[in-house]
């Protein structure tokens, strides 16, 4: 199966990718070398790597990482050199005098590290403060609510909701307000911004600022139970005009059925068990338990990253999502074999 989750695919395919790749601030010589060594690993796929940042917050942390990486490398090299020196040149089996090079130990083990650590701590404080900056009060805001095991996404002022997919305007600092409906979760988009936990009973805020358009995979990073593994989401950073258009659609009724099959599908949806839990704007389906499905046809995946969003997987999901994502809140559905294709057609038409 293949979910379009990387920065290369999706709606902003347009030239964003090569430019972005070339702008990548630092080469990864060490990692590249390691990739070369581990043939098995091969570094396949296109990981949502914190070392390939596309957002202001993640870029800052990536720079901090490289500073820490080189210092660590120096420290490790120093220790290894001393260790190897001892192993090669200090063999023997005679008891020796108890010389006490206290000054060496104090300087190499405490003095020098102290100076380095204080400096690094200063850099760390600077970055901590930079990540903690509050966005403007009038910055665009996304309200994200964690559920077991999906993300509800709303925009103040827009009546609609979506799930597991967050659209933001590129180049703008977007405020993200985080709440959880049940247990702790953690909101994390490695290429855009470090984590912020969702704390039961409280509201947390973070922000996202994508420096280049693209699709960025995010995932829950705080263990939240059976399906913690399948609680991913996608951040779509797009030009302001695209974002505005998308938000306008989120505020409007869902797309009306255009074919007979879609109409039958809508009827099955509204009159069947679906509507008890799911909403589709502008129809009688106003369930609030599961994700709003008003634009489900356009989403990047089903079940918060569990399977790709295509007709086959959608049918499987409807009939028995427990085989796809065991433990999720949706029970197997008593949909007749005749109604299922219509239902699939209708849901896939909702974009």
């Amino acid at each position, binding site marked *: 199966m293949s979910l379009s989750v990387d920065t290369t695919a999706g709606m902003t395919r347009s030239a964003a990718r090569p430019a972005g790749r070339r702008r990548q601030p630092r080469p990864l010589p060490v990692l590249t070398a390691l990739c070369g060594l581990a043939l098995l*690993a091969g570094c396949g796929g296109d*990981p949502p790597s914190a070392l390939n940042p596309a957002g202001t917050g993640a870029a800052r942390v990536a720079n901090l990482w490289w500073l820490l990486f080189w210092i660590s490398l120096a420290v490790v090299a120093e220790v290894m050199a001393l*260790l190897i020196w001892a192993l090669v040149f200090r063999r023997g089996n005679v008891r020796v005098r108890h010389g006490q090079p206290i000054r060496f130990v104090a300087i190499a*083990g*405490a003095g020098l590290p102290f100076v380095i650590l204080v400096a690094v701590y200063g850099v760390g404080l600077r970055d901590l403060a930079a990540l903690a900056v509050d966005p403007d009060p009038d910055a665009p805001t996304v309200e994200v609510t964690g559920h077991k095991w999906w993300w509800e996404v709303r925009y103040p002022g827009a009546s609609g909701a979506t799930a597991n997919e967050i659209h933001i305007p590129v180049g703008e600092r977007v405020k993200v307000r985080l709440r959880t409906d049940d247990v702790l979760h953690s909101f994390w988009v490695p290429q855009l911004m470090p984590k912020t936990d969702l704390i039961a009973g409280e509201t947390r805020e973070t922000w996202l600022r994508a420096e280049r358009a693209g699709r960025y995979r995010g995932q829950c990073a705080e263990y939240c139970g059976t399906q913690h593994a399948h609680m991913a989401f996608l951040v779509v950073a797009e030009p302001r005009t695209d974002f505005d258009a998308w938000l306008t659609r989120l505020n409007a009724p869902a797309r009306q059925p255009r074919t007979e099959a879609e109409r039958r599908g809508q009827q099955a949806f509204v009159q069947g068990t679906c509507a008890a839990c799911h909403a589709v704007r502008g129809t009688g389906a106003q369930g609030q338990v599961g994700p709003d499905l008003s634009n489900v046809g356009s989403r990047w995946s089903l079940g918060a990253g569990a399977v790709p969003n295509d007709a086959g997987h959608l049918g499987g999901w409807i009939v028995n999502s427990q085989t796809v994502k065991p433990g999720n809140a949706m029970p197997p559905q008593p949909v007749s074999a005749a109604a299922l294709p219509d239902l699939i057609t209708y849901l896939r038409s909702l974009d």
Partner: protein
Amino acid sequence: MATTSTPPGVSRVDLARLTEHWAESPSLRGWFSTVDHKRIGRRYLVTAGVFFVLAGLSALAMRTQLARPEAGLLSPEEYNQLFTMHGTAMIFLFATPMLFGFGNYLVPLMIGARDMAFPRLNAFGYWVFLFAGLFMWASLPFGAAPNNGWFAYAPLSSEQHNPGLHMDVYALGLLFLGISTTAASINFIVTALKLRAPGMSLNRVPLFVWAIVATAFMVIFALPALNLDNAMLFLDRRFDTHFFDPSAGGNVLLWQHLFWIFGHPDVYIIVMPGLGIVSAVLPAFTRRGVVGYPLIVLSIVAIAIISFGVWVHHMFATGLPQLSYSFFSAASTIITIPSGLQIFAWLATMLLGRLVIRVPLLFVVGFIVTFVLGGVTGTMFALTAFDQQVTDTYFVVAHFHYVLIGGAVFPMLAGIYYWLPKITGRMYHEGLGRWAFWLVFAGMHVTFFPMHLYGLFGMPRRVYTYASEPGWGGWNLVSTIGSYVLALGLLLVLVGVVHAVRRGRPAPPDPWGADTLEWATTSPPEPYNFPVLPRVHSLHPVWDERTAESTGEGATADRILSEGRVTLLTSELDARVERPVPMPESTLKPLVLAAALLVLFAALLVAWYPVAAVAAVVVAATIAVWLWPAGPSRTSGVATP
């Protein structure tokens, strides 16, 4: 040796009397009633080893599941129980008990005493550990094992989100186990402060003993927070209190604060005795004392104190105030200094010594390499901004396995090979040991080094599976292969131990030419440890002729003490002789008390409260009988009148 020839300075009559007073009957009853710290220590080592195997097999199952994306070997529910039991067992049922096993066996020997200060409490601690471990593992075949991660965050641990017995097993199991850990810690502290051989002033105490005592103090101050947490969790789940229920005014972060007030010191509780083992092993294989004894002692004490001020670095993503983060970030940064100091003290020791490359030294070298790699990433985690990016990813899994395998398992393995001749009286097979070392070392790094990478590449931890497109599959396969190599290496360690016990050639009292007192007696030691309690004149008593003479020509009756089952009580700082103190005989009371507690906790688990009440009465009665003032001939440990 002493069984065949009389040591100088001690008459045959004295030896016969010592044997009469200290030997325990070889009967079945004797097996259950022993209070000998050496037998108890061995049991700790073996039992913790068994739990290590179980937790390791859990890890292998997980690694197999994660070898490729979307694998179906384990269901999510099975995986979640396995990773929880893996972490919980490794931390609580393996690491600390294993190191306490070393402590139990070695502390009295290293300080020149005949037993722990409270031998019956010692036996009790072991039985509780055994029962608590069985209590927790027994839940797994029933599919009722803890499934909330070893740190069991609220509110996922609540009855609402996690019905069934899973988290009741966790809360009760850890409360039960905490009794054992606390008892052992008190015992270590009193033993090290009151039973040291005459002349072993604090500045002559072996570094391993310092490490164990500092660890014991940390346990005593850290564990109450965990116990409180688990008590509140159990009350929330079973009796509808609302400590962690935000809808009723509770607070979910309260769990995290209390857990990590315990949990961070616990990292050092695990690593510190490991560092102590390194300091104990090095002199024998560098042919000199460890450089900077006072610096290392200061480091140990500094770590023990600072470790209580860093817990919030486990909560850097929870959105607490920046000011608080800047403080805890500073404390977490600074705590690396005492560890770095020790590393350079050991390096200086090696650079100024003459290295004898044997298996224990190999594991010490493996320790330094691994622990330093874990240390540098640890410093990274002290910086809040970086921590927020990599916490709860495989990067942190890599980090703490480097710290814990590097800082605890490698030293333990060094310790196993180092003290095996002392404990079993048999030498291990050097070639087998070297194979084991290289497989363990390679397996460890092949397993855990790639985790740094796929953590940075965005893979969160605690996922039972992962999608294929992020491209984590290849690296995961490398880790899985590494884990099998690691397992093979550990199997060879086990083979080596069994081989030594079965076929090993007899070990002399001091095969390494080492410096501490356990090497001044037979391998394995007699039940009374030392025919003559030594008078200590230096930090390296076995390398010191005057100390050796004190057990030979210079032996005096006040240090032979063959008139009864007694050891010497000495002063806390300078180890001046105070008086001989009688030690208790073997008894079944510790076993009865531990068994009654097991019934109590099991009854609480399955909600048979009347049974729990009866068990509580039995517990109280056993304690009363145990502590009942006895006649002068039966007086027990140090503090009892």
